């Protein structure tokens, strides 16, 4: 039984985490997504005072309160959250479906050969596995717009690098353990770098919706060659790469 009865944990005096289990599993994440919807409705009808925001994660959701607001006492808050958590149905992810171009050129994929060797695969087989797999966005975090993707096949799973890099280039496709992601920004990081996308994952000027991906979205990588990458990168740099053009739905349209 993966899903446990929910429990509420204090994260300091101004946040509470509602936990549904201790593993990464679609069943547990479905409960997190269902709880997020129930919480949104509860906050909208004023059932919980002083809520600033909440962060859905793999197996839990953290609610942040305004410490300057008139808050219910901690025990009452926990009761309200537990009641919501017990009642909320599990919700299957119903996100958008993306096709994201990735260039696996050696210059962008410094760890591709090492990962292939470690897993007894050819370079081409690794790329085939990556592009054949649908990935699911479980949560965003670590950096603005950084998606934690589930679904990496066991055949590609490798613990993170012993020594993290001090600077991972922005938009690197990376894997670690059973997770996959793209670094939206240059940052230190210990994941294995297997390619690069020209797509911007976060745009503050897109103020209503700055992050490209949302929890529940499905992503497939599409291999592109270096010339295509450079052309798309030039378009993206000038804002000419429309987000809508990366959605599967748009392919059906004339």
């Amino acid at each position, binding site marked *: 039984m993966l899903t446990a009865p929910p429990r509420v944990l204090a994260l300091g005096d101004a946040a509470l985490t509602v936990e549904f289990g201790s593993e990464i599993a679609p069943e547990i994440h479905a409960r997190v997504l269902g709880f997020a919807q129930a919480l949104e409705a509860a906050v909208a009808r004023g059932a919980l005072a002083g809520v600033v*925001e909440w962060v859905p994660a793999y197996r839990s959701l953290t609610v942040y309160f305004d410490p*300057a607001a008139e808050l219910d006492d901690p025990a009452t808050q926990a009761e309200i959250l537990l009641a919501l958590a017990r009642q909320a149905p599990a919700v299957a992810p119903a996100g958008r479906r993306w096709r994201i171009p990735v260039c696996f050129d050696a210059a962008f994929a410094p760890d591709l050969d090492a990962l292939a060797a470690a897993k007894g695969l050819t370079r081409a087989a690794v790329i085939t596995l990556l592009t054949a797999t649908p990935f699911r966005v479980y949560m965003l*975090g670590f950096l603005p*717009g950084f998606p934690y993707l589930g679904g990496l096949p066991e055949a590609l799973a490798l613990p993170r690098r012993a020594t993290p890099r001090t600077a991972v280039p922005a938009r690197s496709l990376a894997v670690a353990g059973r997770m996959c992601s793209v670094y939206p920004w240059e940052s230190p990081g210990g994941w294995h770098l297997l390619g690069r996308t020209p797509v911007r994952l976060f745009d503050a000027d897109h103020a209503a919706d700055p992050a490209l991906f949302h929890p529940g979205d499905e992503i497939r990588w599409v291999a592109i060659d270096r010339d295509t990458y450079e052309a798309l990168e030039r378009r993206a740099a000038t804002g000419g790469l429309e987000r809508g053009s990366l959605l599967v739905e748009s392919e059906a349209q004339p």
Partner: protein
Amino acid sequence: MTGVLEVVEAGIANCIQDAGRPGYRSIGVPLSGAADPLLLACANRLLGNAPDSAALEVSLAGPRLRASAGAVRVALAGAVSARLIRANGTVREVPAWQTATLFPGDAIAVGAPGAGVAYLAVSGGLRVPLQLGSRATYPRARLGGVAGRALATGDRLPCATVGGDPWLEFRAAAPFEHPPGPIRVVLGPQDDHFDATALATLLGAEYTVSHETDRMGMRLAGPRLAHRADRGADIVSDGVAPGAIQVPADGQPIILLADAQTVGGYAKIATVIRADLPRLAHLAPGAPLRFAAVAVAAGRAAYRAQAGTFAAWCARIAPFRPPGAIDEAALYANNLVSGIVDAHEAPPRP
């Protein structure tokens, strides 16, 4: 009316901060904002600004700023002082906890804070563009501040010009001081990854702030906090907050600070209460600290009590005429008439 402060010398790692960027944590955007929101509020209230107006957070070495348009009023809060360099060359010391007014051509050189952060607020607040509802600088994603980075020489910082009598300044009756004592924490959320010995060590031992400290987090050195063998240091990543005390496998705690990432994969043994977070901003590398556990309700009561202390501090801000203000006013009026500035001439007496 719009005033402008021009950055003549950027100093080191000085950045624009306000109350931060709530509302975007679910897409990975850190809260950010002032490391000590109370000192930010003090500097702003001296000027009559809203307490969370954007101001400069000064840490290692303060900047030198020159008023290039309009009369601009500034105020410092924290263990810091500045020199006010008039366009005519006269120099006077400007202590913290009071305002000073810069006329076009005047400059202010902010010193190095004694320990941790200090704030320089300006009339009307720093009016750089809002990004995702805040002006707080978060360089990693190039958000807020000036072009999403720390101050650079040549930056022009828009603000408001001073209203009313520019020679009538304001000062606080006393510095705003944080109370001493252990840093108060609420245990958890993953205190069950540790046995009773580790919890007793956290609450009984002394820890030291290491050099590996920035706006994202503060690494401590001290007795090792061992994880339970059946639980370990790693968890499936969940939400974190400034103040969360992560313990990686080496057993040395890391306190997350204002620019903390939004989720984390290390067990959090305890979390600093909101009222005590600002105190962490004043602990330099090598400083000792101890922890004490409190209940959630006690943490919230401490936050309300702190708001009361701040309100009482604000109520004791009063106007004053700084020594020499009358001379300076006359000199300034004279300069306006003659258009000549001579640093070596004694200022005329009224």
